[in-house]
């Protein structure tokens, strides 16, 4: 036993718990309550009582076309983050881990987008995509080609995904590279002696040994995809064009603060939380099952 008396620990834990309770759990419970009322404002004003509307907001979820788009886009983003953020970061990490000179330069270059604020990246790409005078269309113009509406209904989702995915590759790259450096060189040397090629080493040594780190990255990526907000909002606010690029976060924000529909916004917030919990549990179950199979 490191500490015989436990009560001093409480003194340190309680302030944090109080803080969490007041600023996280209490608002969350309040949010659940709000979803059952027709809120006429952010606060209930004397003389304007909120009407109890039972499950109306939850029923609306099933008839709302935009929430279906938002959920669909959020799931698409989850898949894309796993493949292009974690997957691409893993490839980069393996490649960088295999070089001896200039590793630090690559680390810095790949990590750089993380230190730039999402708003700045969003504005940057917004300028790239501008129809009138945007960088991409200026390039097309110099090649005597017609300008393209990069944020047209057909292209917008892709154009928003590119910077969103790109900006987070560095984050997973650093985590995975740290994981790779923890694998002993002796194992690779032994594999070399046994005649195992570098390519096979990745599949038979690196991936199995990196499994806990990869699982952590995948969990972070899929739950993070549910919280995507700032970049899409800056590039194309209100799910533009025509609500087609809404994610759960952007739609919740538009409903709550753009349309003053606070109660329906609260309902969408609950959907986000529920989906976050379900998805993270699913990831946990999927990887746990695999582990059992490996153990047999």
């Amino acid at each position, binding site marked *: 036993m490191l500490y015989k008396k436990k009560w001093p620990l409480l003194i340190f834990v*309680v302030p944090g718990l109080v803080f969490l309770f007041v600023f996280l759990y209490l608002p969350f419970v309040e949010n659940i309550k709000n979803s059952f009322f027709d809120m006429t*404002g952010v606060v209930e004003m004397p*003389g304007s009582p909120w009407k109890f509307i039972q499950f109306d907001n939850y029923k609306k979820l099933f008839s709302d076309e935009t929430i279906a788009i938002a959920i669909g886009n959020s799931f698409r983003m989850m898949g894309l983050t796993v493949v292009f953020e974690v997957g691409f970061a893993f490839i980069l990490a393996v490649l960088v881990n295999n070089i001896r000179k200039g590793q630090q330069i690559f680390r810095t270059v790949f990590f750089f987008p993380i230190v730039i604020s999402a708003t700045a990246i969003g504005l940057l790409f917004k300028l790239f995509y501008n129809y009138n005078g945007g960088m991409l269309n200026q390039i097309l113009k110099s090649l005597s080609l017609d300008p393209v509406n990069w944020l047209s209904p057909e292209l917008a989702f892709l154009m928003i995904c590119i910077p969103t995915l790109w900006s987070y590759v560095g984050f997973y790259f650093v985590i995975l590279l740290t994981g790779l450096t923890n694998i002993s060189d002796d194992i690779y040397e032994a594999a070399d002696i046994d005649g195992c090629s570098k390519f096979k080493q990745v599949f038979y040594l690196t991936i199995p040994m990196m499994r806990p780190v990869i699982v952590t990255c995948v969990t972070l990526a899929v739950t993070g995809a549910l919280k995507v907000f700032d970049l899409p909002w800056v590039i194309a606010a209100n799910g533009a064009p*025509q609500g087609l690029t809404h994610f759960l976060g952007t739609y919740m924000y538009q409903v709550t603060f753009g349309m003053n529909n606070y109660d329906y916004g609260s309902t969408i917030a609950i959907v986000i939380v529920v989906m976050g919990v379900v998805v993270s549990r699913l990831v946990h179950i999927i990887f746990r099952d695999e582990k059992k199979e490996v153990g047999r």
Partner: protein
Amino acid sequence: MKKKALSILLATVLTFTMLTGCGKTEETADDQTTTEATDEAEVTETEPEAEAQKDVTIKTVSMFGGTDPNAEVYQQIIADFQTTYDYITVEDNSQSSDEEWKASVAADFSVGNEPDVLQFFTDATANQIVATDKFVSIEEIHAEYPEYAQDTMGTALEAAKNTDGVQRAVPTTGYWEGLFCNKDLFDQYNLALPTDFASLKTAIETFNENGIVPIAVSLNNVPHYWVEFSLLYAAGPEGYEAVPETAPADWVRGLEFVKTLRDLGAFPVDTDTVDNEYVGSLFKSKQAAMQLDGSWFLGGIEDQENTVVIAFPGMDDQKAEAGSIVGGISSGFYITRKAWEDPDKRDAAVKFVMAQTSQEAVQKYWEKGGAVGKAAVEVTPVEGMTNLALSALAYTNGATALCAPTDSRIDPEAYKTIIAGIVKVSTGGSAEDLLNEALAINNDRK
């Protein structure tokens, strides 16, 4: 024992550090301004009656803050006011109006933390706060202070009454909305400024052929002006100012007019994704020929000689007379019951509002706004006006009808539902369904 004391001390420090972050400070935001009497270096004149008064502090809140051009005038009037009445301290907390600010004002009223004087909206935006019954009516103030709001025109006070018909706020200036045109572009392509839908259509087609954006608008960001004028001209002033329970055919036709224009290629290709600042820059840099906007847009236009404001050209089968304008007076200074029932603050609050709404003060506000808006008092015209300002004056003077916008009559959530849905309507969505959805929200809130 020593360790125990240290751990308690550390925990206490940790707790206070966290709680300090939650504490409310009044001077945190950059665009908030606080003016206090102590800032005044010299007090030159003091009214004789002031000497007998005891010190009083009044809390004021206004939307004349941040980058609002009125902020400078507002603060100068406060400074002069405190010089004149050296026993009154004004603790002002002004900020540019946005949804966050409106919510914070509402929150203050709900918890009894309302200011003594509030400069706020008078239309449906204020309904919730008005419902708290925490404002004093002008009639009640007049009973004790007959000189209150004496410079303000009766029509202006009437225009600034709340939606329940009671006059509570004293306004300063109003606004109008109109079609800004780059006249040099029209001249370049031998086009007449549009006066009806046929000439508007010709202009749109010609500009399109020549690579000029005919109308600068972001349907995704600020389609409000097009919604308002389309509804006004389709339904006529009477139909426009009515608050129906279900979508009237004229309103549906009005919203569908936005689709007609879109199909004609009137809007930028990326109108669904760009923001209002961007389309404003298209217009100001002569890449776009027309922009429907408000009187506040005028001051930011560099080319004041080749830009003009004209009436909305209209549409086929319109019910509004040519020259009908959207505009009005939608804000003013309120005195709260909290200040009115405090014997020390009552007189100070009344004096403050009178200082902010006197002829002299409103003249300053009016001039700061380009001297083209609607003033709540009789104003003296300024000399050396630009072509743009002159055209604006001609536009407002020639108005055949002046109608307040829809958001002054219907619930904010209902209005924003219309605004959020206009992109879908412009691409073929049902205008009737959208209007019915919005009006149903409004019906529920009645």
